[in-house]
C-alpha cells in the first residue's frame, strides 16, 4: 500500500469492495419508482420502458418489468417469524438503520418483522426489519453493533 492509494480516497476501504448487482421482477415500474426512488431514496440511473436501474446504497439494483415472476412461495422461520426465503437488502450502520425505520414507519409501512433487535446478547446480535415492496418482493435491512459480526458463527 503506498501513500497515493491511501490519500486518494480516505473513506474507501483498502481493497475496494465489489458492488453487488441484483435484478428482480416487478409488476409495475411506476410503483417501483415510487418505492425505491421515493420512499427508500435510491437515486435512479438509466431506465427504459422495461426496467429501471437504482443506486441502492451504492449497489446496482434493476427493477425488471416481469409480472409473471413476482412473488414467492416459501417462507422459513427466523427467530419466530416466517419470512420469505427469497429476499434482499443491505447491512447498514445503526444510525442509517434507525433513520430508515423511522421513515418507513412514517409512511405506514406494513412490516413482516417490525424493526427490532434479534439474537440479543449473542454474537450475531443485530437490528433487523423485514417488509414487502408494493410488487411483493421481500426486503430485509440489518445493522450490527459490531460490523465484524456480520459473519459470526
Amino acid at each position, binding site marked *: 500500500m503506498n501513500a497515493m492509494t491511501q490519500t486518494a480516497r480516505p473513506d474507501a476501504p483498502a481493497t475496494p469492495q465489489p458492488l453487488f448487482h441484483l435484478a428482480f421482477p416487478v409488476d409495475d415500474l411506476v410503483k417501483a419508482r415510487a418505492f425505491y426512488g421515493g420512499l427508500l431514496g435510491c437515486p435512479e440511473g438509466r431506465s427504459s420502458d422495461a426496467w429501471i436501474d437504482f443506486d*441502492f446504497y451504492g449497489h446496482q439494483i434493476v427493477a425488471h418489468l416481469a409480472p409473471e415472476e413476482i412473488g414467492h412461495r416459501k417462507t422459513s422461520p427466523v427467530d419466530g417469524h416466517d419470512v420469505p426465503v427469497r429476499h434482499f437488502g443491505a447491512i447498514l450502520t445503526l444510525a442509517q438503520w434507525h433513520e430508515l425505520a423511522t421513515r418507513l414507519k412514517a409512511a405506514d409501512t406494513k412490516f413482516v418483522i417490525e424493526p427490532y433487535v434479534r439474537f440479543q446478547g449473542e454474537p450475531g446480535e443485530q437490528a433487523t426489519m423485514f417488509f414487502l415492496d408494493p410488487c411483493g418482493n421481500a426486503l430485509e435491512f440489518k445493522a450490527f453493533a459490531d460490523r465484524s459480526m456480520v459473519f459470526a458463527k
Partner: protein
Amino acid sequence: MARVRPAFHLSFPVDDLEKARAFYGDVLKCPVRRASDFGVDFDFFGHQLVAQFAPGEVSATTVNAKQPARHFGAVLDRPDWDALAERLKAAEMTFIVQPHVRDLGTPAEQATMFFIDPLGNALEFKAFPEGSAWLP
C-alpha cells in the same frame, strides 16, 4: 471506522446445499461463514449471500426471451472479472451470455457474462471501465 459501502444481503433458494457449497464455495471461491442443515452463508465478494434449502422455490426462476429477469452477481474490477471468466470456462460452465464487452465506447460500456448456476439461479458478473457512473 472508515466509511464503507453497506454490504448487500441476499437470501435465495437452492434445492441442494452440497451443490451450492461446491459451486459458490469451490468455483466462485466464496468463503463459507456459517452453515446449518437449512442454509449456508457465503461471503460473496464482501456481501452476505445466504443459500436456503427451499426446493419448491427454485423453479420460480423462469426464463424470458434472453435472460431471466431475476438474477444477481457483482461488479468486479476488470482483472477479477477476467480471472473469473477463465475459471468458469475451465469449469466448462455453459454461458447464456458469453463473457464479452457490450456497448463499447458508450456510457453503458461494460464487460458482462451471464450463466445459470447448477441449482437454477441466474448470475451476472460485470466490470465497468474507469470513470463509469456506477463506480465509486
